[in-house]
């Protein structure tokens, strides 16, 4: 076994990490949890993803220079964890459907907001994230672009495509 030599960079004490993470959680924990729930539709998964996001952000906390960058990195981490989970889950989920699991049918009298919520779950994670940032967090296009780490034009495209897809789904449901 090869030993690691003494480190030259600054290490972090347990209390420093706990304090820094606690402060960030106080500022952004609710927003991160809501984002994870909006992207997964499962509150338990949202809690797990939020915790994992804070673990990863914690590893970078002493290198990120501004609160805004911390927030953007946290939001982006949540989005990508949700995307990774969606990718790991999709093959298993559709395979189970193929093997005969019953998918619950939507009741015909479902309320408008429940229909919208279900339609949201059929969007890509990035489309849902863009809509969440613009229509729940009320971010500007520039703020949303910074949060997702993409261009303003990409945000416009994600929002427009997401709204179009929602409209198609909901109008199609109304026609049934």
């Amino acid at each position, binding site marked *: 076994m*090869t030993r690691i030599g003494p480190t030259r960079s600054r290490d972090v004490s347990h209390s420093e990490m706990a304090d820094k993470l606690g402060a960030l959680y106080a500022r952004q924990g609710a927003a991160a949890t809501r984002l994870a729930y909006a992207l997964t539709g499962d509150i338990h998964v949202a809690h797990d993803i939020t915790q994992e996001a804070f673990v990863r952000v914690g*590893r970078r906390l002493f290198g990120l220079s501004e609160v805004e960058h911390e927030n953007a990195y946290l939001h982006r981490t949540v989005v*990508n964890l949700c995307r990774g989970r969606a990718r790991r889950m999709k093959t298993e989920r559709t395979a189970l459907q193929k093997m005969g699991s019953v998918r619950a049918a939507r009741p015909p009298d479902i309320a408008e907001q429940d229909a919208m919520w279900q339609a949201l779950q059929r969007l890509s994670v990035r489309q849902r994230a863009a809509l969440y940032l613009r229509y729940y967090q009320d971010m500007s296009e520039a703020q949303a672009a910074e949060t997702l780490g993409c261009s303003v034009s990409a945000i416009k495209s994600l929002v427009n495509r997401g709204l179009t897809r929602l409209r198609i789904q909901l109008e199609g449901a109304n026609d049934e």
Partner: protein
Amino acid sequence: MNDIEGVLRRTFRAHLDSIDIPRSLPPHVGVRARRGKAMMVAAAALGAATIVSAAVVVIPSLGRSGPELPIGGGRPTPPTIAPKENGRIAYSLSGNGVELHSMEPDGSDDELIPTPPGSAWIPAWSPDGKRLAVTVFPLNEGDRTIWVMNADGSDAQRVAAAENVSGASWSPDGTTLAYAASSGDSTAIHLVDAAGGNDRIIHGEAAEGTFAIFSASYSPDGTEILFDRGTDSGFDIFVMNVDGTNTRQLTSTGTDYDPSWSPDGTQIVFTREESVEDGPTAVSSDIFVMDADGDNVRRLTDDGVETTNLDPEWAPDGTAIAYVAGVTGGPGGLVVVNEDGSDPTTLVEDGVLGISWQPRPVDED
């Protein structure tokens, strides 16, 4: 719907304003964050990959604050590798559970291969075509496992187990398997002896900016491992030396995964996701090919918004590519195309999950 934006705002408020938000983070979050940061600090100080135990490799930070990963390039010219003859295609089929089948390349002579109890999800032929490594998912609770067996399913030996494992990839000499595994919150690339034992991690998830590792694939000359992993922007394809050093990023779109080597090691076929404006699914995916250094990316399939083409595998003689042609990323048909994407032929209509193409054993009649 006239006021879709208004309904959207009200829907978000109704569903998100009153969800349960824990008052604080559990203590293990800080412990794990600090532990991960300490590993990164140590790795940065070393400036190179270092074996820290029999099982863990610490690699340099790969995030924005660290050195930029080289994109493509720098790959030495591989030695000439002779093509092999195309043998049977093994594939997993969902329907009555998930069963393993094999058939001739023209779709004839389909046979069921017995496998250990569970769903036989992902097959991988050995380089000599005489054995199979199969990833099996349990029917109920329990680890996912990798087994090595003879081509007829006999003499199955379990060689790996974890909360989740990928398909296995054989070293060209048939002695070692590479695979990705996750347990709890971490994923890593492992090597293990094909006979079982000597399981070790060569690339762990301590690297900053890594979210998950999904696959591992030996190069035909045995010197490199190709893999895909989550990044800050999505999923991308990477390659590294077989000892875990010299990691290079080959794609940077955030939408690329399931890479597979050509038999001569000069090209890589992979899946690329594309967002779509209309259609029943939010994304579609198609098969693309690139040079082994990440250059010259070109599309192989273009089947429109309703399809998710996935999991491409090269034929052993290099003249064709097989892939799963599905919808919504699930099981689909097994399609074979020429290496230029022409002349698609559907060999299995639906229900296919994983594919592996056998190099015909040299002593077979």
